[in-house]
């Protein structure tokens, strides 16, 4: 640390303008020769604020040292050592600065350009990082670490037909499973025993969704009905919510920070409409119609916007207050299958943080404010981002608040993309495809990061662990697999299902993974 020299002159304005020229002026050989760099550390939350001053560091400065430096009193002045990840030119620093910088430059160069540069280099004297400080972007990592699940602790029989959806409660104390035998079952996770059987549907239960306060469960069925149940005793909260003309394809609760009583629920259906229900009155508040084919997914954003995607190739934004469609996003060439938003994980967890403290009725308002703070923290200064996946084998990254044009189109899959999910920290997106692979994309610019191969059948669903370091996937080949995102390898295989795995979910507290499928058994996996 003795090499550190804090520069007193603030160069924020200068450096931001020079950022783009950096790549073109620096050549591999010069960088290799340099032993010291001027660097500055920049926040990665979209604001691009510079932290601390510019300083000179050794070229072999390592990730661990960078982390210490950032935590020190000259920069963030943290009490504890918090983990961060660092990026140079959008390439993550895994060992030391120089190697990463070399790699990033080599990645940018095409073979021809590299050749030309080599010839040029001989006669020229290059400008190096001493003129424009090297920008290192940093992102906070999750403070906790989720340990990978490796073994099956419980195979819970009970359903008499295939399990179609599995969902953990936001506080991680119980799990709900919807099945083809027209029941929803709640399972207690501490004892790994059945808790309640919720009977009332007359056809398959297609989707199950916990309210963000963890007190209610909504279920939508092929009988066109939405039902809401109390999680504590398994009773219905009111009458069945009837109104859809075809089966219910998705459910979304109003975010906890907008309404702590969790009264409103949105449901989308094959009948081309989205209905907003008042759960406590058991009636439909209003209907949003505009899609011209079945709606495949609905999400309730944190700012009072409802997002929906449908088989009519469009994504629509609706304003809840004015009850009207505010934007239509065109871009896909075939059915839009699924959609995810960058704040999805935090909205799902609602009233609970990673410690999952039980919610008490008299502290609702307090918890609401906390939830709002957490939401704002995750969102940062970025607008909400959407990623949609489609039958045309592509994904599209949108920033609907800024523009109705796509930011990036993510191509590479060779089959229908069935499921897509933002990582909890909102920096990555995982997509599951029928071409037997999972791909991970950078959520900031839509760049391809890695492919996870190993399944021998179409991959149906994926789910992230809370720290964004692990991923679990369920496939038609009757296995679930856990993937390590730091190196893109298979971490462990979870065999045991006798048939297709339709749904997987990682509990918000990170302890368990639940999987259910055609063999009618709900399996709980633990570390």
């Amino acid at each position: 640390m003795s090499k550190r020299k804090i520069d007193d002159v603030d160069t924020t304005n200068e450096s931001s303008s020079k950022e783009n020229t950096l790549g073109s002026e620096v050549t591999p050989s010069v960088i290799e020769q340099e032993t010291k760099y001027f660097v500055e550390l920049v926040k990665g939350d979209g604001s691009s604020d510079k932290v601390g001053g510019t300083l000179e560091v050794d070229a072999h400065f390592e990730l661990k040292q960078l982390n210490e430096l950032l935590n020190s009193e000259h920069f963030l002045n943290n009490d504890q050592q918090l983990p961060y990840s660092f990026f140079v030119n959008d390439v993550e620093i895994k060992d030391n600065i120089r190697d990463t910088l070399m790699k990033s430059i080599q990645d940018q160069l095409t073979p021809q350009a590299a050749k030309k540069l080599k010839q040029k280099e001989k006669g020229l004297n290059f400008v190096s990082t001493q003129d424009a400080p090297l920008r290192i972007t940093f992102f906070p990592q999750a403070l906790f670490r989720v340990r990978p699940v490796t073994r099956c602790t419980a195979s819970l029989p009970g359903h008499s037909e295939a399990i179609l959806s599995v969902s953990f409660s936001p506080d991680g104390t119980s799990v709900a499973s919807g099945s083809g035998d027209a029941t929803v079952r709640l399972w207690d996770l501490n004892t790994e025993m059945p808790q309640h059987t919720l009977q009332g549907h007359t056809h398959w239960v297609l989707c199950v969704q916990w309210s963000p306060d963890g007190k209610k469960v909504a279920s939508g069925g092929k009988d066109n009905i939405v039902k809401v149940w109390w999680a504590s005793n398994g009773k219905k909260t009111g009458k069945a919510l009837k109104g859809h003309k075809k089966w219910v394809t998705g459910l979304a609760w109003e975010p906890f920070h907008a309404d702590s009583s969790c009264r409103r629920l949105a449901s989308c259906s094959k009948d081309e409409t989205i209905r907003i229900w008042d759960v406590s009155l058991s009636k439909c508040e209003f209907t949003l119609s505009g899609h011209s084919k079945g709606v495949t997914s609905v999400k309730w954003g944190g700012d009072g916007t409802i997002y929906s995607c449908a088989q009519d190739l469009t994504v629509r934004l609706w304003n809840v207050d004015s009850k009207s469609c505010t934007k239509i996003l065109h871009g896909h060439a075939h059915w839009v299958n699924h959609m995810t938003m960058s704040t999805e994980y935090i909205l799902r967890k609602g009233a609970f943080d990673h410690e999952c403290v039980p919610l008490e009725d008299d502290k609702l308002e307090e918890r609401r404010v906390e939830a709002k703070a957490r939401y704002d923290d995750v969102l940062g200064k970025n607008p909400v981002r959407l990623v949609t996946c489609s039958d045309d084998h592509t994904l599209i990254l949108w920033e609907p608040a800024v523009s109705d044009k796509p930011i990036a189109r993510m191509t590479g899959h060779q089959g229908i993309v069935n499921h897509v999910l933002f990582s909890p920290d909102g920096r990555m997106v995982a997509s599951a495809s029928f071409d037997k692979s999972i791909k991970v994309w950078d959520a900031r610019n839509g760049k391809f990061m890695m492919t996870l191969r190993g399944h021998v059948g179409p991959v149906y669903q994926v789910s992230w662990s809370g720290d964004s370091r692990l991923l679990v996937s369920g496939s038609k080949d009757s296995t679930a697999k856990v993937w390590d995102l730091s190196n893109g390898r298979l971490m462990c295989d979870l065999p045991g299902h006798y048939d297709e795995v339709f749904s997987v979910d990682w509990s918000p507290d990170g302890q368990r993974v639940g999987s259910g499928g055609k063999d009618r058994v709900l399996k709980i996996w633990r570390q």
Partner: protein
Amino acid sequence: MPQNEHIEQHQRRHGHKPDHWEVQRKKEARVHKNRSKMAQKLFGLKAKLYNKKRYTEKVQMKKTMKMHEQKNTEEKNDDAIPGGAVPVYLLDREGMSRAKILSNTIKQKRKEKAGKWAVPVPKVKALTEDQMFTIVRSGKRKKKVWKRMINKVSFVGENFTRKPPKYERFIRPMALRFKKAHVTHPELKATFQLPIIGVKKNPQSHMYTTLGVITKGSVIEVNVSDLGLVTPTGKVVWGKYAQVTNNPELDGCINAVLLV
């Protein structure tokens, strides 16, 4: 108005007699008596014709009754929840690739355990040697009779090399060699043309098994890698047994049922 329709005209104008419907009902109730009287009285050709007419009438009546019965049972089934539940993301994709889907359901598993040796064709007719072989005479004077030509369909592996023709005891004619079979998956009710890997068992004789002769009831191994079958651990299955259900030498093709 036609001249002979004055009764109908009268009825239109003045209506029926007060007891008309009562009389009709009673008349109808007596019909069966008249019919039976008739049936007893008639003989000869007239009886024959009459009985035939009654027979067809009765058949028709039974058919209509049965039709109505079926309708009733269907209504009952409406309340039951249909099986084969699929998640919402597969609902619109039904039938797209389901024909190719082969998966090991629990039911299938149990069946496998319970009746491993239950096969679709449990008994085969024994074939005699002269149905199986034609004697080929050889030697200069055609007096040697140890050569045999197989009359049935056979499977000859890829790497088979012939012995010198002079010493070849069993001749498997080229025209009766097969490489592929039409294999039906019994639960999917779908048929696939699959390459044969080998003959597992010919029930007629061990010798035919080693010769690769395929007759009705033979168990053959087929390559199912196209179907995408997987084991519970997620490995792809590629070889599975199937039993031949037809007489391939008569039909010119091999039809088989997959043993699951």
